């Protein structure tokens, strides 16, 4: 048997972020795979210990580039729990808008992303266009397209700009109108179907063994384990939505589930726009004084939310000073992205490695944080 060593990443179109996998292949079958984190040189967790509680909002969005807001949210939730800070009602609802828009945004990216490994390049062009409409909304609300730094400890950084509700609705309408075309182009495309159906199967035992959450767990087990339902945060307990599940998890099912989730997110945002208080405060005080001296009381907390890739959490320890003492990030893709690659990527055809990484939801910075 001849074995060949191939490098996937750290810079590779099929790799998400600066992350490297050494592939030992025999023919076009992967025999062994060795994930190599450490290419990012960011050291998020350590950096957070050296930054003020306020300052960290400039750093943490970078742990997930495509869906940065989840970081801001878990960070804020954790600090708020430690500091007994009561978030104003309106801020909860604004946060939901941001989080769900971000979820749609990353799912659109995934729709486009599947075009890379399968060769369907119309997909990325379309999806990025639609995603950009969402980024336009983000730009108007937060002042930035990608790293929003908008959800902060105590609420949100600024109130919604006037008339944004109408613009959000327009984007949702437009997106909804396009969804059937996406279905035609991607989900009913034989290129995609042939490459993803019955391919990259994730059995329930494997999901449980590794600790996979999110779409992976839901499509393999049929159980609706979604933090928004099992431990509701913000005001997710006051809106109606379904958690799509399945009993067979192949690449296609997982892709299809994202499509279904986009529809649910649109449904959530519509309800939020209708139910949210129309005015009122959006930010509570963290502690006395200027932001340079904000302190969070001593204690420890684990806060978690549902990201597009599963359960996303921060374990935060505060020693009562103006910087966090320790923050550990529970990246949703850590189990499959590190352990999963090593144990379950072998056996995959070389052409399908990128599909494996894409549909399993591997996000480099949250592994290499």
């Amino acid at each position, binding site marked *: 048997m001849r074995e060949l060593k191939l490098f996937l990443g750290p810079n590779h179109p099929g790799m998400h972020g600066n992350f490297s996998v050494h592939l030992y292949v025999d023919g076009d079958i992967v025999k062994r795979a060795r994930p190599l984190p450490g290419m990012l040189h960011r050291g998020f967790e350590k950096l957070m210990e050296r*930054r*003020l509680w*306020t*300052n*960290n*909002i*400039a*750093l943490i969005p970078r742990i997930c580039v495509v869906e940065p807001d989840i970081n801001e949210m878990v960070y804020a939730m954790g600090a708020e729990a430690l500091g007994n800070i009561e978030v104003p009602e309106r801020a909860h609802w604004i946060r939901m808008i941001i989080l769900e828009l971000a979820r749609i945004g990353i799912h659109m990216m995934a729709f486009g992303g599947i075009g890379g490994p399968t060769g369907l390049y*119309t997909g990325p062009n*379309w999806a990025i*266009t639609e995603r950009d409409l969402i980024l*336009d909304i983000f*730009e*108007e*609300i*937060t*002042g*930035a397209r990608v*790293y929003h*730094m908008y959800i902060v400890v105590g609420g*949100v*950084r*600024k*109130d919604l*700009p006037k008339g944004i509700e109408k613009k959000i609705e327009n984007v949702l309408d437009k997106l909804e109108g396009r969804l059937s*075309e996406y*279905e*035609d*182009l991607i989900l*009913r*495309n*034989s*290129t995609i*179907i042939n490459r993803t159906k019955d391919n990259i199967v994730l059995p329930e035992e494997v999901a449980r063994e590794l600790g996979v959450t999110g779409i992976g767990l839901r499509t393999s087990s049929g159980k609706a384990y979604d933090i928004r339902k099992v431990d509701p945060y913000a005001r997710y307990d006051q809106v109606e939505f379904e958690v799509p599940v399945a009993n067979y998890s192949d690449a296609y099912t997982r892709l299809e589930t994202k499509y279904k989730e986009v529809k649910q997110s649109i449904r959530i945002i519509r309800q939020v726009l209708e139910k949210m208080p129309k005015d009122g*405060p*959006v*930010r509570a005080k963290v*502690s*006395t*004084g*200027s*932001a*340079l*001296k904000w*302190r969070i009381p001593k204690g420890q907390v684990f806060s978690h939310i549902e990201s597009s890739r599963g359960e996303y959490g921060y374990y935060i320890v505060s020693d009562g000073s103006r910087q966090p003492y320790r923050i550990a990030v529970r990246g949703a893709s850590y189990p499959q992205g590190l352990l999963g690659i090593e144990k379950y990527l072998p056996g995959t055809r070389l052409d399908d490695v990128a599909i494996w990484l894409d549909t399993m939801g591997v996000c480099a910075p949250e592994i290499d944080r």
Partner: protein
Amino acid sequence: MGNKKNFFAPIKAWKYLVKKPISIPMEDIFENPREAADRYRGFHANDWEKCIGCGTCSEICPTNAIVMQEREELPDEDGSKPEKPAIDYGRCTFCGLCVDICTTNSLTMTKEYVHISKDVDDFYFLPKENGIHDIKYENAYVRDEVSELLDLKRYDMVGLEADERKDSFIEIVKGFSKETAIAEASRCVECGICTKTCPATMNIPEYILSIWKDDLEEGVDWLYKTNPLPGVCGRICTHKCETACALGNRGEAVSIRWLKRYIVDNTPEEDYEKVVLANVSKGGEGKVAIVGAGPAGISAGYYLRTMGYEVDIFEAMPLAGGVMRYGIPQYRLPDYSLDKDISFIEKIGVKIHTNTQVGKDIQLEELHSKYDVVFLGTGFFGARGLNIPNSDHKDVHLAMDFLPQVRDFARGVIKDIDVHKSAVVIGGGNVAFDVARSLIRLQEIKYGKSDVKLIALENEEQLPADREEYEEGMEEGIKYQLGCGPQEVMLDDKGNIKGVKGFKCLSIFDGQHRFNPQFDTSDVKMVEGTQVYVSIGQSPDYSYLDKELEEKLGITRGKITKIGKNRQVEGVDWLFAGGDIVQGPDVIHGIADGHEAAKAIDEYLMNGKNKKK
């Protein structure tokens, strides 16, 4: 889903082949960029007119992208630094925290976002009003109430109400509780503009930080580095620091003075003593005599002693403290506080000889022969009189004669002061208010009611006294006749004072900023009262100097002018001077002077010049 159907489904996408593309052509991105959103966090703009160079933006910057750059063309004034923020866009994350925390609102972010260069050093900018490329772009990300990162409101200081305080000399201000002090301390942005403004360059941000950390021992250490009378300054300092405080631009300045007082009043005695005594070092060889135990003398004595010199202070009065002991009334500066400060001066080994007047009990020449160096800190203890008709009447009193009696009365040394039921105070400075408010108290104690009127040349805005003096005086019942120049003390048939006649004051200074008041003689004011107290300034007493020395000092308008920056008298090596007689009346200036002089004396003695065996 049949395979056939699936085969045709994607073909529907072909309809877009004939549609216009929505992507923007490359050349348009550079030449005609898409307009950014109204809140867009683009490149910065900084209004140099407003920016005070406090550096708070640089302090909060998570990536250290902002560096404060010193600019020679900028003036170095109180309340600002000659620095402006420069931003490295290679590091900037465009988070906008700098904008949210800007103390003056000068920093904003614009809609500009295009900058192209192959040179990495080309991303370092000093933004001005028109952004980084000097092209005016619309402001985009600006701070609002929600994104505010400063705490602009002061925490209230608890004090006695007017009714509770006006019939006794009990201290008005009660001091901060621990919680309030920490909360107030947390407002500080540590810019240090206060330090720059303080005559004694006190380490204000540092001691405020100690309060915030609840490490008062460290706080005491910071205080004594530049000020050996923190208890006094924590109560009666004219707090130029608070006027300069960066937070004052958009909100209320940090209560720096009360925070200083909090450290002094709340540090446990043994910790306090440990810190202060630890400051004394051995090494200085020499003896220094100090004339006058006022702020300047005590400060010079303290620092000389910490350097190891032997220090003797000669004070004419029975108690040390000078104007702090015999001028400022008890309700502002109680004896116990002054005693505490002075006790530590004595504990480190400074000898204070009270009841010893130089020029009478001991001659200056004698000090010169016995000591290596003599420091003069005799202050402005005399009163300046007012030269108007009948101002020599027996019921016309001078502030600096009256105030020592008030202090002695309050501490029980004298039993009675001859105050009438009604009085007129002339003057608009802090001392005039001290007189007026003391009179209120004395009248209330004696008669159960008070009638005090205050005449000043200045109107309400020009009044040199602190605003709080004006307001608290009003609460206590002083009636003001401001913008009025006294012309004559009016007498009745029996020769007793019945009031003061004044003209409306039109202007105080002439075109050359010289004191030259103009009056409207047709607008006559009669202010009634049977006693008059004049408080229009203080004067020095140089009777202890011989003629020859007096000439060498070059005394002009009461101040010594022939003196170097190091407080050494020109041409008289062994003589140094400081405080009021050099700077004019102010406690904190006196302390600063004493410290400066101590350093200069140390240098002088170390160099061994003129050293006696």
